[in-house]
């Protein structure tokens, strides 16, 4: 039997409270609230611009709430100039807490919608020692966001560069895809996007791509960037800009990952970085990684 769409909709609508009823419960003007909601819907549909929206409700909002009604300032378009107010991001991974469950790997893949073959975060697993003194060890490996990054040093076109917030970024629109950086990275953190897709397993995979470094690349097609360029972990910069932690930090089941500002001596990462358990990978190479491990 084919149930008309109306039936489904009405089920939802029964659950929904009337907007007016909600607004009636507060002291402020109900009509204004409804009008603004309508306006917001119009902005979303593209009927009016957000500037027009602000203009339209400016006076009413001021009278009703006594505040100036103005758009939130957008951060500047050039990612390099986003200095994050002097913050320098760093990550601390407590290996004693890591259980090697690969949640970080999966959540990173979901967050950044990375294609097959591109894995910003991997967990390297190994067994060390001789019986009976054996131990399973796990080493989660994102990009180290090195302070002296060999990948940036070798990029012929300056498509890879260091941001002031500590993150090493790649400009996909500039990268020529020579893969020199991949050869030069001592941590194997860089991945070439061969243009593969999960579309077969996951409907709509190609419909949209994560906007890494705040640059939207839109639909995934075999000829458009970032296909044919090199990619890597971004410390989830798009999430940082919204005030959220990187996906791997947020989802870690053992709370083994910490994230924060190494410029702030009171931040938790600064304190952990000073711990005698702290070390960094392949320190002898002088790359100065910003990912710090706790033994």
């Amino acid at each position, binding site marked *: 039997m084919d149930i008309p769409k109306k039936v489904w909709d009405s089920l939802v609508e029964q659950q929904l409270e009337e907007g007016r009823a909600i607004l009636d419960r507060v002291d402020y003007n109900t009509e204004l609230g409804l009008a603004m909601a309508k306006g917001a819907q119009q902005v979303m549909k593209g009927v009016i611009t957000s500037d027009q929206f602000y203009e339209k409700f400016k006076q009413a909002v001021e009278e009703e709430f006594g505040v100036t009604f103005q758009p939130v300032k957008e951060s500047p378009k050039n990612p390099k100039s986003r200095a994050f107010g002097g913050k320098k991001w760093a990550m601390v991974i407590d290996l004693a807490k890591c259980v090697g469950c690969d949640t970080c790997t999966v959540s990173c893949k979901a967050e950044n919608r990375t294609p097959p*073959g591109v894995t910003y975060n991997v967990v*390297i697993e190994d067994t060390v020692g001789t019986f009976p003194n054996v131990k399973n060890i796990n080493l989660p490996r994102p990009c180290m966001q090195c302070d002296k990054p060999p990948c940036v040093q070798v990029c012929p076109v300056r*498509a890879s560069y260091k941001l002031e917030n500590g993150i090493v970024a790649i400009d996909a629109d500039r990268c020529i895809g*020579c893969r020199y950086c991949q050869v030069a990275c001592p941590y194997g953190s860089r991945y070439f996007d061969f243009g593969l897709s999960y579309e077969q397993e996951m409907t709509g995979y190609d419909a949209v791509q994560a906007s890494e470094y705040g640059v939207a690349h839109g639909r995934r097609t075999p000829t458009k960037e970032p296909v044919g360029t090199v990619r890597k972990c971004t410390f989830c910069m798009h999430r940082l800009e919204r005030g959220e932690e990187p996906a791997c930090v947020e989802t870690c089941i053992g709370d083994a990952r910490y994230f924060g500002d190494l410029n702030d001596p009171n931040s938790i990462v600064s304190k952990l970085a000073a711990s005698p358990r702290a070390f960094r990978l392949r320190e002898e190479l002088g790359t100065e990684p910003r990912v710090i491990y706790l033994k």
Partner: protein
Amino acid sequence: MHQIPVSYQRHSSQKHSSARQTNLKKIEKIWWASLLLVFILGMVSLVKGYLLEGMTSTNLSNVVPWGEWVAFYIYFIGMSAGSFLLSTLVYGFGMHQYERIGRSALLSAIVCMITAITFIFLDIGRPDHIFNSIIYWNVTSTMAWEIHFYILYIALLVVELYFSMRVDLVRLANSPTRFAKFYGFLTFGYRNISDEALQRDRKLLQILGIIGIPLAIFGVHGGTGSIFAVAKARPFLNTGLFPVIFILSALVSGTALSIAIYVAKNKVLKRPSDVTMVRSLGSLLVMFLSIELALEWYEFLIGWYGVKPEELATISTMAGSSWAWTFWLFQMGLAMFVPLILLFLPKTRKSITWIFVASILTIIGVVGVRFNMVVPMLIVPVMNGLPGGNYYPTVSEWITSFGLIAMCFLLYTIGEKLLPIDQYEVVRGEANDD
């Protein structure tokens, strides 16, 4: 001081019998047809694989991001730098005993450079961004420097070839050949071939040759070696000796190429080769090979002695894995010990045929040398615990490569056909007066 080094008596061709002529025509036809066939096949595979499927048509992966095309790129760069350095013996240092291969070495240097650049152009993921490599210059990137050096180097090669041929271009322009107009155009209006003008050409060639030496050694080839050597993530590459070995193996392949071209051409045209010159080139080859061997010995000794795990793993991948045949057969066999022995034994080192064979084997063997500079170090994972790699070129990669190699031969043949490259009739005695 100098006399005009060349005396052109283009009469010997009339001496050929007509039977020989038709035979030659046939050989030439077969040559063109087979090259064109391979070239067209290569282009078809290029369109089908590279253009339509993108990089997935290769066996490259994120563990082994560089493969066959990079290997062939450095192979041809080496060949070009080597040929050019050989030509500087003639034009830079006035060693006129090698005069007869001067222009052909310059032409092969240009053609090999074009081939090399085509290979690396194919290898990049976004050919549409290629001009970024000229617009944005990262001064800390060896690769960025290389790209600019290559442009300079090709320009220098072309100018040098022009001035080395100018006298003949002018003569051809004034002769009643069918292409007189074409040659007239190629003289770019500069038709003065008085003694003073030619003297000036010589001086210029000398200056260009001398400028070209550091450009070819440090800029083009040592620089290409440095692209690899600066990668501290790969201990096997990260040695000061690596760029030097690069230069030596360039000299080896360039010398071998020049010998091979010279002898092969004479063999086909059934004219005798200049025995003294070929032998002397043969001893040059032996010298370069011996130095290369010594350097490689130290490279391996020190790498092995240092017991760095990645380094040992790379050496054992190279010499003891399923790829070991490329090392033992090509790098150590064809490109090292076989020519060394051939050029050392008194019997074979005097014979033009054996020297020729040694050169051909070297040219083939150096392919293995180049592969082993690129692939084994990538197969070894960069960090313990990361997946190890595996790489063997796909059929599509091979056919495309063969197509480009055929393109190299085609370009060279066209150059020989159109331009006064052949200097068979240069009389050594006259050239050798200073």
